C-alpha cells in the first residue's frame, strides 16, 4: 500500500488539510490559560473566583465562581465554568490538590457560565435540579452559540452536556460532609443552593451576587426576593456567591436584595409614569449601586428583560377594545 496516498482524491486531501488546520486551531485555543488558582476557604473546600466583568474575548467567560469540596469519598464540584477549556483546567487544578477522583459535578442553575465545563467531566458525575436539566436541554445549544460570539476561541470544542442525575431538595451526605440541598428559584426557574453543614459554607449560586450587579435574563424578582429571605434565615459561616468575592457573612444577600428592590421600584414607577423604554434606559443609577461592578450595563440589560412586563401591567389600566 505504498501508493496509498496517491489514491486519495483531491477532495479527501483537502478535507485532511482542513481537519489538520482545525485541529491546530483547537490546540491553539486549548493553550488559552484561565490561570485557575483555587483559594482554600474552609476545611477541604476551595473556590475559584472569577472576574467581576462581562463575558469577553479577554476573560474567556471566566466571570463565575466555581468551587469544590474534597471528601474521603471523592470530590464534589459545584459549577463547571463557561467552557470545555475551563472544565479541563478545573480538573487539572483539582488534581494538583488531591488524588481523589471527581465523583459529583453539580450545576447550581442552567446559565452557560455554570455548566459549559460539564463536557470535561465523566458524564455519570453530572447532577442538577430537574428544572436545571430541562433548561440545559432546551436552551443549552443557544447559550453555547452565544458564548462563542461573546468569548471567541476560548470556547473551542465546547458543546452543552446536560446532567443525567436529577437532584432533590434535602440532606445529602458525601464522604463525611453533611450537605443540605436547598431548591429555590427566582434568578432562574431552578436555583440550587448547597449548605455544607460540616464546614458552614453556603454555596449560594446566582441567587447571590457580591459587589457585582446581578443579571436578570430569566429573573422573577418577587420569587428571587422570597428565596433571598429564606437564605437570610440560614446559619452559616462563609458565603460563596455565584459572582464576586467570597464573604464571611450574609451582607451579599442584603446587597442583592437591595439591588432587586431598587430595580423593581424603578421599573414600576417608570411604567406608572408612562416612560418610554428609551427614557427608562437613561434614568440615573442610584448612588449606592454605582460601586457595584458593571452596574450600568446590567441595569440596561435588566430594563430590556423586565420592563415590558411592567409596561403591560401599567397599560392594562387603560381600556381594551377590538
Amino acid at each position, binding site marked *: 500500500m505504498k501508493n496509498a496516498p496517491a489514491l486519495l482524491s483531491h477532495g479527501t486531501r483537502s478535507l485532511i488539510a*482542513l*481537519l489538520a*488546520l*482545525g*485541529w491546530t*486551531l*483547537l490546540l491553539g485555543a486549548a493553550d488559552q490559560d484561565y490561570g485557575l488558582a483555587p483559594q482554600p476557604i474552609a476545611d477541604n473546600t476551595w473556590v475559584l473566583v472569577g472576574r467581576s466583568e462581562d463575558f469577553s474575548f479577554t476573560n474567556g467567560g471566566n466571570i463565575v465562581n466555581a468551587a469544590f469540596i474534597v471528601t474521603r469519598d471523592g470530590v464534589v464540584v459545584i459549577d463547571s465554568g463557561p467552557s470545555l477549556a475551563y472544565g479541563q483546567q478545573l480538573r487539572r487544578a483539582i488534581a494538583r490538590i488531591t488524588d481523589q477522583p471527581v465523583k459529583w459535578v453539580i450545576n447550581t442553575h442552567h446559565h452557560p457560565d455554570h455548566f459549559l465545563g460539564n463536557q470535561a467531566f465523566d458524564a455519570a458525575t453530572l447532577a442538577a435540579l430537574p428544572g436545571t436539566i430541562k433548561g440545559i436541554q432546551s436552551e443549552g445549544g443557544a447559550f453555547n452559540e*452565544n458564548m*462563542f*460570539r461573546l468569548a471567541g476561541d476560548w*470556547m*473551542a*470544542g*465546547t*458543546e452543552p452536556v446536560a446532567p443525567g442525575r436529577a437532584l432533590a431538595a434535602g440532606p445529602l451526605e458525601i464522604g463525611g460532609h453533611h450537605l443540605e440541598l436547598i431548591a429555590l428559584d427566582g434568578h432562574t426557574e431552578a436555583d440550587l443552593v448547597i449548605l455544607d453543614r460540616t464546614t458552614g459554607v453556603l454555596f449560594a449560586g446566582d441567587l447571590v451576587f457580591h459587589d457585582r450587579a446581578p443579571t436578570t435574563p430569566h429573573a422573577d424578582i418577587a420569587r428571587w426576593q422570597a428565596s433571598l429571605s429564606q437564605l437570610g434565615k440560614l446559619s452559616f459561616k462563609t458565603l460563596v456567591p455565584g459572582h464576586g468575592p467570597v464573604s464571611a457573612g450574609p451582607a451579599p444577600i442584603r446587597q442583592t436584595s437591595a439591588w432587586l428592590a431598587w430595580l423593581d421600584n424603578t421599573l414600576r414607577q417608570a411604567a406608572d*409614569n*408612562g416612560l*418610554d*423604554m*428609551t*427614557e427608562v*434606559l*437613561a434614568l440615573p443609577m442610584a448612588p449606592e449601586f454605582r460601586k457595584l461592578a458593571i452596574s450600568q450595563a446590567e441595569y*440596561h*440589560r435588566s*430594563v*430590556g*428583560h423586565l420592563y*415590558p412586563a411592567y*409596561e*403591560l401591567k*401599567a*397599560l*392594562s*389600566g*387603560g*381600556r*381594551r*377594545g*377590538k
Partner: protein
Amino acid sequence: MKMFRTLAALAMLLAGNLALGAPKAKPAGDPLDSPRWTDMRKEMFPAKARVVFDDRVKVTAPLTAENPMNVPVSVDASALTDVREVLVFADFNPIVRIVRFEPQGAHPGLGFRIKLQQSTPVRAAVRTGDGTWRIGGTWVNTTGGGCTLPSAGSSSPEWQKRLGEVSSRVWERKEGGERIRLRVIHPIDTGLAPGIPAFFLQELNLADQTGRPLMHVEGYEPLAENPVFTLDIPAERASAAYRVSGRDNNGNTLSAEVDK
C-alpha cells in the same frame, strides 16, 4: 462540530475578502460612517431631493440591544418646525424600512420597538415643509437574528384570538399636553422565518374625540411583536378621549377607544 463551524466561518471570511476586495471608502458626510449610506440615499430618496444630516433629528436607542427582537427606539424631531413625515430605517436590516409616520397634530416624535438582524445604524429621515429630508441616527450593536425568528404569536392560537387588541393609557405631561402609550397585540412576522409569511401592522391612526387626525403610522415587517408606541400630544390638541384605528396586511382591522 464547533471546529467545522469555525472553519466554515474562516472559509467564508477568506472567500468574502477575495470576492469583495478591500472595503469601499466610507462616504463623506455620513456621521455614522456606514458603508451602506450611499445605497440608502439612492433607495430611500428621490435623486433630486435635498438630503442633509441634521443633529436636530434625535434617534435614541441602546448602544447594545439586549434582545434583538425587541429593541426600543424613539425619534424626536421637535427641534424642527413644519415636520411633514418621518421615515425610520436600518441600513443593515434585511428589510430596511421600519416605520413611517406623519405627526398630523401630535408632537413630531414616536417611541416604538423594532427587530434587528445585525448591528446597524438606525436612522430617522424627517421631511420638512420645504421638501428637505433631514437625517439623524445612531448605531445599535446586537448579537442579531431578530428578523429571521418566528414570533411567539405565530405558534399560539391563544394569542391569535387577541389579534388587534389594544391596551393604552394617557398621562398628563408636566410640560403640558398629554402622553399616550399604546400596545397592540400582533405577531408581526417578517416573512423571513421559514414557512411563516409576512404578517404585519400596516397602518395605525390616532384621532381626537371629534375625529381630527393626530398621528398616522405606517408599519413595516421589522416592528417588534406586540409593539408599544409612545407619543405626545401638545396641550392645544389634547382631547377628552382618543380613538385608535388600523389594519394589517391581511385586512384585519382594529379599533379602540383610548379614554381617561
